[in-house]
């Protein structure tokens, strides 16, 4: 009987799981879903907020439909991360067309800021989806500005200046 996938499994086992799933094996896909759904949920939740389950579903649609295009199974999680973050931003933007977003004056705290730890949800709700994506990539995934910019397909300077300006804005409000 096929054994389920695990985040801690060796790279060769993960590679074999991906290759079998690419051939359309439903049980390998089941195991890959077990492995990827929690990760995709952690990425989509903070970006798409109440639309998180829809975003995670859309991301996994895209991941499993394009699975055959993944040539290097070792790159699985980076590949999944890029798809999940872009899908979460897309779903969040689509859903908030009728809502007021204060993304232009976004308040991004620095990593480790106590406000971030205590009030993540309300902070996220005040940000535009693109800013939430930067925060997730930086604070949850540990990416640097260059990697975050590449994933979001924006210039590195845009990410850097946006973060810097937002942090100043956040400090100003927090200390007021």
């Amino acid at each position, binding site marked *: 009987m096929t054994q*389920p996938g695990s985040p801690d499994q060796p790279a060769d086992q993960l590679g074999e799981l991906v290759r079998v799933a690419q051939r359309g094996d439903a049980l390998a896909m089941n195991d890959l*879903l077990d492995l990827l759904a929690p990760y995709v949920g952690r990425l989509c939740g903070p970006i798409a907020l109440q639309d998180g389950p829809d975003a995670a579903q859309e991301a996994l649609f895209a991941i499993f439909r394009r699975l055959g295009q993944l040539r290097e199974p070792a790159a699985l999680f980076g590949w999944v991360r890029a798809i999940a973050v872009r899908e979460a931003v897309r779903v969040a933007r689509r859903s908030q067309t009728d809502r007021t977003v204060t993304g232009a004056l976004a308040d991004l705290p620095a990593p480790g800021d106590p406000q971030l730890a205590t009030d993540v949800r309300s902070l996220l709700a005040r940000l535009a989806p693109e800013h939430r994506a930067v925060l997730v990539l930086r604070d949850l995934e540990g990416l640097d500005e260059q990697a975050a910019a590449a994933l979001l397909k924006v210039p590195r300077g845009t990410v850097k200046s946006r973060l810097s300006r937002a942090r100043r804005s956040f400090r100003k409000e927090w200390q007021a």
Partner: protein
Amino acid sequence: MSETQGWPVAELDAVRRLRVLASAQGGLYAEGVIAAPFEQVWAVAADLEGELPKYLPDVRSLRVTAADGDRLEARARGRLGLRARFDGVLRPGWCVLQSRFLIGGIAAVPDGQASRVAFLGSFRAPGLRLLRPLLAPLERRVGRIVLRRLEAQIHAR
């Protein structure tokens, strides 16, 4: 939505998972709400030997031959006498079975006082996949029949 250290986490319930599997596999997919609590629905849906042959039109009998945690092996016999070995996974709200030629899945989640139930059936043979556009109307009809039969079995208990 749950949280990890204050960060919201998006949950993918079993029905959404089956939608993902269906989008990758194609084939017959049907989803509906059954007016019964989840526990009652899953007690019938997960009874592979006793109830599954009653709600799946092509299955005459199914016998679970081995089980290890949520993994299982089963032997099924079709209405026309064909036999097949299935490997599968069975856990609360989620079941996927796969033979050499067929894939079947059923998922259920609570939906208020009722339950949302989804069913997937797909051929693994590439040649049959080419016929999918022609089979689509039939697949939709069969999907509705499966869910109706399942609901009837649940209310008959």
